[in-house]
């Protein structure tokens, strides 16, 4: 046991016990933090590990959410089956985008813009896709919220909190395993210098595809959660580029490529956004846009003064390795 393990164990215990002393509002904030932590971790696999900048991850959240949501809405098929449909669809989509991009040697800024284009294309497509409600949205039946019905993924807020906690913990464990495995070393080699990695015999095309597949599969799960947690889906909301930005702010603020960065970043940003709301309410400054101005200023300061995110310098301060 070193300090990192002790810290992690304490954090896990705290999060497991949180519902015992948190109110319903705090619990919903915690669920949101975990949602962003998990989704950020999924994005981090592609960008932080393999170096492929995706600015269109809302695509996988949206397609995952709509896939599971639509088959539940139309055929009454529950989320456990829908989950696999969502994952398969998102992985297929990710592989198509990855195949097209990597085959044609598209990387860096061009790859990022390609991912935005696919997400936006899909957003507008879903606006005209009447089977899932078009711009009017898709609404899932809301069942009673007091008993745990795990088979139908219906239950009290507590159930959603623990689901997100398990997902975030699982993703953390998976990523920390991967980072120390052959895959992790290959990805990092590709991220640092793709030509050198290829010269050493790494099939960079194949390993980038694996990263995309894993990242899109993990993000699809976020989408399914989103559908059954919020019960309403609108293309304008779920596929919008600002959703993609929201997903990636956490890991970037926390520390790209680090294991703990996405979790820390999600917590910092969600609490910051909440804190600004409270502060402005206390000051009586409640006109539209003012909150986001402050949020933007904080982002600007963080990115200017902490180029690697919050976690790496903090980890050094705590005597841990990032």
């Amino acid at each position, binding site marked *: 046991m070193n300090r990192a393990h002790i810290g992690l164990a304490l954090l896990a215990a705290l999060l497991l016990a949180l519902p015992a002393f948190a109110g319903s509002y705090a619990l919903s904030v915690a669920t949101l933090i975990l949602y962003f932590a998990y989704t950020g971790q999924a994005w981090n696999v592609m*960008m932080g590990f393999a170096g492929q*900048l995706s*600015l269109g991850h809302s695509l996988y959240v949206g397609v995952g959410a709509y896939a599971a949501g639509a088959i539940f809405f139309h055929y009454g098929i529950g989320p456990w089956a829908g989950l696999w449909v969502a994952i398969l669809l998102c992985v297929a989509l990710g592989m198509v985008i990855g195949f*097209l*991009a990597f085959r*044609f*040697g*598209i990387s*860096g*800024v*061009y790859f*990022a*813009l*390609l991912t*935005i*284009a*696919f997400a*936006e*294309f899909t957003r*507008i*497509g879903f*606006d*005209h896709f009447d089977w899932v409600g078009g*711009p009017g949205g898709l609404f899932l039946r809301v069942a009673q919220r007091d008993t745990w019905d795990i088979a139908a993924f219906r239950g009290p807020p507590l159930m959603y909190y623990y689901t997100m906690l398990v997902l975030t913990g699982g993703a953390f464990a998976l990523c920390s395993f991967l980072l120390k495995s052959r895959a992790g070393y290959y990805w990092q080699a590709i991220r640092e210098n793709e030509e050198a990695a290829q010269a050493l015999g790494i099939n960079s095309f194949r390993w980038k595809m694996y990263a995309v597949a894993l990242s899109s599969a993990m993000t699809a799960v976020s989408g399914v959660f989103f559908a059954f947690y919020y019960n309403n889906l609108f293309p304008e909301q779920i596929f919008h*580029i*600002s959703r993609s*930005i929201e997903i*990636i*702010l956490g890991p*970037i*603020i926390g520390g*790209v490529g680090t294991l703990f960065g996405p979790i820390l970043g999600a917590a910092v940003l969600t609490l910051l956004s909440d804190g600004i709301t409270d502060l402005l309410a206390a000051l009586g400054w409640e*006109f*539209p*846009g*003012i*909150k*986001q*101005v402050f*949020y*933007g*200023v904080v*982002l*600007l300061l963080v*990115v*200017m003064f902490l*180029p690697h995110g919050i976690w790496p310098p903090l980890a050094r301060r705590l005597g841990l390795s990032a």
Partner: protein
Amino acid sequence: MAPELILNVTIAGVLGGLVYGLMALGLSVIFGVVRVVNFAHGEMMTIAMYAAVVLFAALKLDPFLVMLPVGAAFFVFGYIMQAGFINPFITRPEHSQFMLLVAVAIIMVNALLVVFGPDARNVQVDYQLESFEIGKLLLDKARLYAAIAALVAAAALFAFFKFTLMGKAIRACADNYMGAKVVGLDVKHLYALTFGLGAVCVAIAGCAMVLLVEVTPALGPAYTLLAFVIVIVGGLGSMPGALLGGVLIGVSEALAGLFIAPSAKSMFSFGLLILVLLLRPQGLLGKKA
């Protein structure tokens, strides 16, 4: 459908597309030299549009008259933005640059929202509803003037890069960063100058655009995406490519609005973008990397 209608819509698309092209030209020039993608480009465009709206409302100044003063202000603004904020980021990874400009964009959009509220604003000049009639063709006056202004501004920028020593120096920085430093060029200053010139393109395009559409703060991100689509289609870093891309997108939007549904129009732009990225990733007029 009457062929005159299709032709008229196409012409309107070409004219509006030239204004898009000028906006995208700013993005393309900045990327071509500084190698930073300006994710706050559309937001800068909406600021210029609001500047024109405010000057019109307060002083009854025609948007064409305020192009030069707004352009000058944007030049200073762009220079400071590059020299003060972006320059330390040019050696940082792309996601870091992206974050910086996204933060700037968030501040811009929401500052506009705070100041002007979410309602649409516009300018009303007497020639807006007039048009030139050439046989069955109708040329919307405001649109035609806007397109001419965009062409003149683009031509001036071409001439600057082609014929002035400063322009040559900037092109040298774009070609070879290290080489430019070695021969003693003040790269930081030239980068800031380039960003300033990109901002001038945006300012002029913004002043022209208020004659064609109403402005809301939410237009910013949409214009940023539009500018990306245009420069990728035309070729990121290629100046004629940006204008060509603007016209292509303008026409495809206009025709999609006519034949399918106005709400589906940007789907075609993104579809075109995906096709170009896959078949000719350097863009229609871009040079092979």
